C-alpha cells in the first residue's frame, strides 16, 4: 500500500501547488522573484510597499500651494471661486487670440468630457443627464449659451458650477480653451475652424 500512498500524495500535492499559483479572484497567483516586478524608484501607482515619506503612503504629491511648474504659466488663473470671481472672469478673461486647433482637440475632448451630459451636439441629451438633472437651458442654441462670455465658461470648467463639477484636473488650460471654442461653434456663435474635419486617428499631436 505504500506505493499507493506515494502516488496519492504526489497527485494531491501537484493539485494543491498548481491551484495556488493560478491567479483568480483575490489571488494574484505566484510571482517568481517579485523584486524584479516592483520598482525601487517611485512610480505613480506602485503599491507593493507604501511610501514611507508621503501622507497616506502615496507616491504622487500635489504641487506646493502657490507654485507653478515650468512651462505651465497658463495654469495660473487669477479669479477666485466666488460669484464675484465668476462675474469678473466674464468680463476680464479672454480666449488666447492665437489659439490653434488644427487637430480638432476641442471636438475630441468635448466628446470625451462633455458629451456624457451635454450630448454630442450640445442638446443636453447625454445619457448621464437624466440622472443629474437637466440644466435650465434646453440646448446650446439657447440665447443663454450664445451670449455667455467665454471667461464665464472657463470659470465653470475650472471650478464647476451647480451640478457640474470641476474639470480642471482632466483638461489642461489650453484644452479648456479649445473645448470652449468648440462649444461656441456648436452654438453657432464662434469662429468655425476650417480644418477640424481631419480623420480621428490623425489628431495625434498636441
Amino acid at each position: 500500500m505504500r506505493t499507493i500512498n506515494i502516488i496519492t500524495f504526489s497527485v494531491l500535492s501537484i493539485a494543491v501547488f498548481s491551484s495556488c499559483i493560478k491567479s483568480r479572484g483575490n489571488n494574484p497567483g505566484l510571482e517568481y522573484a517579485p523584486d524584479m516586478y516592483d520598482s525601487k524608484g517611485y512610480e505613480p501607482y506602485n503599491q507593493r510597499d507604501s511610501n514611507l515619506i508621503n501622507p497616506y503612503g502615496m507616491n504622487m504629491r500635489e504641487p506646493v500651494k502657490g507654485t507653478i511648474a515650468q512651462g505651465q504659466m497658463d495654469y495660473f488663473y487669477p479669479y477666485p471661486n466666488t460669484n464675484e470671481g465668476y462675474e469678473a472672469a466674464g468680463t476680464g478673461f479672454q480666449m488666447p487670440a492665437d489659439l490653434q486647433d488644427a487637430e480638432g482637440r476641442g471636438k475630441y475632448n468635448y466628446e470625451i468630457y462633455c458629451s456624457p451630459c451635454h450630448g454630442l451636439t450640445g442638446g443636453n441629451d447625454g445619457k448621464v443627464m437624466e440622472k443629474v438633472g437637466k440644466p435650465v437651458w434646453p440646448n446650446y442654441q439657447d440665447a443663454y449659451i450664445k451670449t455667455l462670455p467665454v471667461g464665464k465658461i472657463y470659470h465653470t470648467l475650472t471650478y464647476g458650477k451647480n451640478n457640474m463639477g470641476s474639470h480642471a484636473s482632466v483638461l489642461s488650460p489650453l484644452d479648456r480653451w479649445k473645448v470652449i471654442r468648440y462649444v461656441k461653434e456648436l452654438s453657432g456663435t464662434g469662429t468655425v475652424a476650417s480644418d477640424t474635419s481631419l480623420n480621428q486617428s490623425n489628431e495625434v499631436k498636441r
Partner: protein
Amino acid sequence: MRVLHQLQSKFRLAGFVALFAALPSMNAQDAKKGKEIFDANCASCHGIQNRGAGPALKDVHLRRSEEWLLKWIKNNEALRKSGDAQALQVFNDNGGSIMPVFGSLAETDIKSIIAYVKEESAKAPKKAVVPPGGESKSDQTPDSTLYVLLALIGLFLVVFLLLARVKRDLDRLAAAGQGQEEEAPKGNIIQRLLPGPLARMNPVVLTMFAFSIFGILGFVQFYEYGITEVGVQKGYAPDQPINFSHKIHADQYGIDCKYCHSSADKSKSASIPALNTCMNCHKAVQARDKYEGEISPEIKKIYAALDYDPEKPANEAYGKNPRPVRWVRIHNLPDHAYFNHSQHVNVAGLSCQTCHGPVQKMEKVQQWSQLTMGWCINCHRQTGIQVEHNDYYEKLHEKVKADIAKNGDKSKYKDKNGRIVVTAGMNGGLECSKCHY
C-alpha cells in the same frame, strides 16, 4: 324680467356647481403642469426631499408665504437687492450660490409649481422595495474543475485498485476450491496488477519505470503552470474598496474610458481617476431610488473619503480631512519592462479594449490579457501601424517608400493576406532596448 333673473340664478348655481366639481381636478391639473415646469426649470438644482445644488423644497409653502415665493422665483436678485431679510438669509445659508432669474415664468406657472411642491411634500419619502440581502455578494466561485477532476481520478484509481485486488483474491479462492495449487502472490502491488510480461520484469526497474512516467507527467504539469501561471496574472480580479461597476458607467451610460482615465492619451500611466472626477456626477447622482431614499452605500464611500457632507450647500468645497481611496492595482508590468499608455493610445490609436478586454461588460474588473513578453511581441509582429497622415511616422513612411522604389520588392512589407503593412516590429518594436533599459 323674472325669467331672466331665474335664468341668471340658475347659471350662477350651475357655475358654482361646476366650480366645485372642477376644483379638485383643477388642483390636480395644476400639480401636473407644475411637475412639468418643475422638471424643466427647477429639478436640476432642487429636490423635494433631498437637496441638490439648491435646498430641498419640502414644505417650502409652510416656511414662506406664497407672495414671497412668487417674488423670489420671478427675480430673486431684485428681492435680495431690496434688502429682504429672508432672501438674504436663504442666499447665505446656501453658500452664496446664485439661483437664476426666472422672469419668463408667468404667475400661474409659479403657482402650479407651488401646487406640485405642496402635493409632493405631503407624500412620504419614497421607499423602494429592496429585498433584504438583495445586494449580491460577490459570489466568487473558485475555479474548482481541476480539483474535482483530480479528486475523481484519485477516487477511480483507488476503486480500481481495490476491485482488482478483490477480483484477484476471489480468483485465488475459486482456484483453491477447485483443488489447484495456490500461487503465492509475488512482487509489489504494481506488479501484481500488471499483465504478464510487465509483471515478470525486475521489480526495481518496474518501479523506476512507473516513477519516471509519473515524473514526466508531473513535469509537464509543472512546466505548463510555470509558463502560463507563474508571474502571469490573467484572471486576477480582486475586491476593490468601492464596488465600482464598469458595466454601469461605461456600457449603460456610455461614458468614454478617458473621461476617468484621463491621462491615458497624455502620459505613461492611464491614471486612476481623482475622487473629484467621481464627484462631477455623484454630487448629483446618489442612486437614492434603489436604497429606500438613502444614498447608495458605495457612493457614501466616496463622500466619506472626501469628508464631504451631502446635506451641506453643494458649492462648498470638500471636507477638511480627505483621504485617498486605496484601490487594488490589477495590471502590473515588471519594473524592467517599460510601457507607455500614450504611445499606444495616442500614436498607435489602439482602443483600450485591445489589451484590457471588454472592460465595459465587466461588473468587476479582471486582467484580461496575459501581459507576457510573448504577448507583446506577437502584437508588435502582427499589427500594422498607420504611417500615412500620421506625423509620428512620416520619416518611417518616407523610408519605406524609398526602400520599395529602390529594390522594387514589396514582398518584405506584405502580410499573409497580401496587403502592404508596416508593422511595429519593423519600426524597432522588437528591439530589446525599446522596452528594457
